[in-house]
């Protein structure tokens, strides 16, 4: 199988740009990143389909090198549909997020921040226990402690 180096380079660039954009906090950029990622991967699948310029039509009388593999194209079609659905959903979510907060960024998790700021000291578990908590008393009413007789 001959490898098309142009396709591979473009795939690499698309994926690198996509992953970079996904790491942004601005949701619109994240969306663009996801679209680039989807296209990059589709191109990668396309390169597995063999020679370009031949039709993906199978006929048993023909030599396998004279037609290209139809399966990657079927895979890409499915992947395109899925990327489309996810993009639509993300757009709706971004719009909703913007409508709610009028900001286009991923917000912090408040509970997460609360936990990270809390101290290791815990009132209930770590506070010193009062000495005289025994309910056993001797005849004069003094508490009996361990080791005393």
């Amino acid at each position, binding site marked *: 199988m001959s490898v098309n180096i142009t396709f591979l380079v473009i795939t690499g660039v698309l*994926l690198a740009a996509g992953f970079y954009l996904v790491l942004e906090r601005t949701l619109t950029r994240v969306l663009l990143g996801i679209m680039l990622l989807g296209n990059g*991967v589709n191109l*990668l*699948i396309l390169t597995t389909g063999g020679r370009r310029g031949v039709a993906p039509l199978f006929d048993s009388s023909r030599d396998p090198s004279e037609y290209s593999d139809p399966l990657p194209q079927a895979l890409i079609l499915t992947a395109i549909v899925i990327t489309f659905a996810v993009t639509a959903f993300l757009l709706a*979510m971004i719009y909703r997020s913007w409508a709610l*907060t009028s900001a286009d960024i991923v917000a912090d998790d408040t509970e997460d921040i609360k936990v990270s700021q809390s101290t290791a000291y815990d009132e209930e578990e770590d506070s010193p226990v009062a000495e005289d908590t025994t309910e056993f008393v001797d005849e004069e009413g003094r508490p009996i402690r361990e080791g005393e007789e």
Partner: protein
Amino acid sequence: MNFLELSPLAVLLPIFGAGAAFLARRRLRTQRLITIGILCLTMVLEVGMVAAVWGGESYAIHIGGWDAPFGIALMVDGFSAFMLLISTVVSLAVLLYATSQGLADGDEPGPVSVFHPAYLILLAGVSNAFLAADLFNLYVGFEILLTASYVLLTLGGTAERIRAGTTYVVVSVVSSVIFLMAIAMIYAATGTVNMADLAVKLPELDQGPQLILHVLLLIAFGIKAAVFPLSLWLPDSYPTAPAPVTAVFAGLLTKVGVYAIVRTETLLFPGGTVNAALLVVATLTMVIGILGALAQTDFKRMLSFTLTSHIGYLIFGVAVGGPLAIAATIYYVGHHIIVQTSLFMVAGLIERRAGSANVTKLGSLAKLSPALAILFFIPAINLGGIPPFSGFLGKFGLLHAAAADADALTWVVIGAGLLTSLLTLLAIIRVWARMFWRRAADAEVPSAQLVAESTRVLEQTAVGGAQAPHLGRKLARELEAESLPWGMRYATGSLVVAGIALTVFAGPIFAFCQRVAAELIAREPFINAVLPLS
């Protein structure tokens, strides 16, 4: 009737059910009936499937009459049938819980009525992933369940859920992209995506490309299974969803990832080349997860951390390999699905009963709501691995298998496993002591409602005195019935009973898991069933 022939229905029934439920979106009663009916039918079908493969048979279905490796094949063996049945049992319990909650709240027809269709589609995706004998079909299964889960996670579209949903969607999409890259490269290297065909052809590749493909698949599945360091998205996104949604996600979604990892390690790359790395990852997953759980004050977040932590045990079992370890892993997956789901359902009940699931606000619940205390206690100590429950049996099997032939690294992981078990117990005890045992007035942020109610119960007990000590308990029961619809309590209870059944019938179930594990490790049953010619 041959249930194995009918197994594609495990995917088709929920899909068509989702369509019907969506058409009936203005008629809530019909919609509920459809969803529950479909799930019951699916469960009957899957009981039949499990019975048919109980002895260790494998059966492949070639969709549309196209023979593998060209057509799409579905695979029913012990592992997939077991996972299918458990997932349907759990989702049925959660569905009854959600329905009862919806009935009690009188959910209005509006955006919320997409819950039932989305739920069925989620289940169809999960079933498809379990049945797939084809990497691309597995990918499609993942995408179906993920897309449905996006909808369920952001149900209602509040600011908090949209925030959680963003993290979840982006992480899931990235993992799908990595999975798709792996599929493309595997196809370029071998010219097939059929798993049985791959099992034959992948070992013929050079070591270098094999390792790359292997690691790519593991990263993709590791994100879905929430394996450290790819697990940090989970505690951020799960707790904000509605209680039934979190419960079913916690039970099923990560386990689909674990299922895929088990298939990858046993069928596609059986050499165990990355086992040492998996052991390290398993240790980190267990220990860091449980340390995270100890730091939480929100009960649902704590449960999310224990969820990721215990995924470590499953990875541990996979990394140890061998029939006993794989059998214990399969058993532990079943245990983990049921226990985590029931705990999240209990968290939902607590939130409903007390107005919050934050332990700093709770107290007196053992007195106020004894039924809730029992429902919490059984799965909680089961999670902590207290004998005789299934958590103990699963962990014992795993550690026993690991210790049989252990090197220094494995001993470290065994130690980490024991430590994690202890710390889980500590986390559980702390929650128990705070939410159930202490007085509501002693809470860090006392809740006025709980304080008032516990005072009333105590007064009633005092009024009754020695003659009628049950007066206080009666009032507690009335208060409980007011806030918790019986359907929610019974649905949770039935899942807790299912967890106990996993313990009571551990003998036959574990023997079944051992047969399944032997089959997985042998690989021939799968390959021969899918590729009849070879």
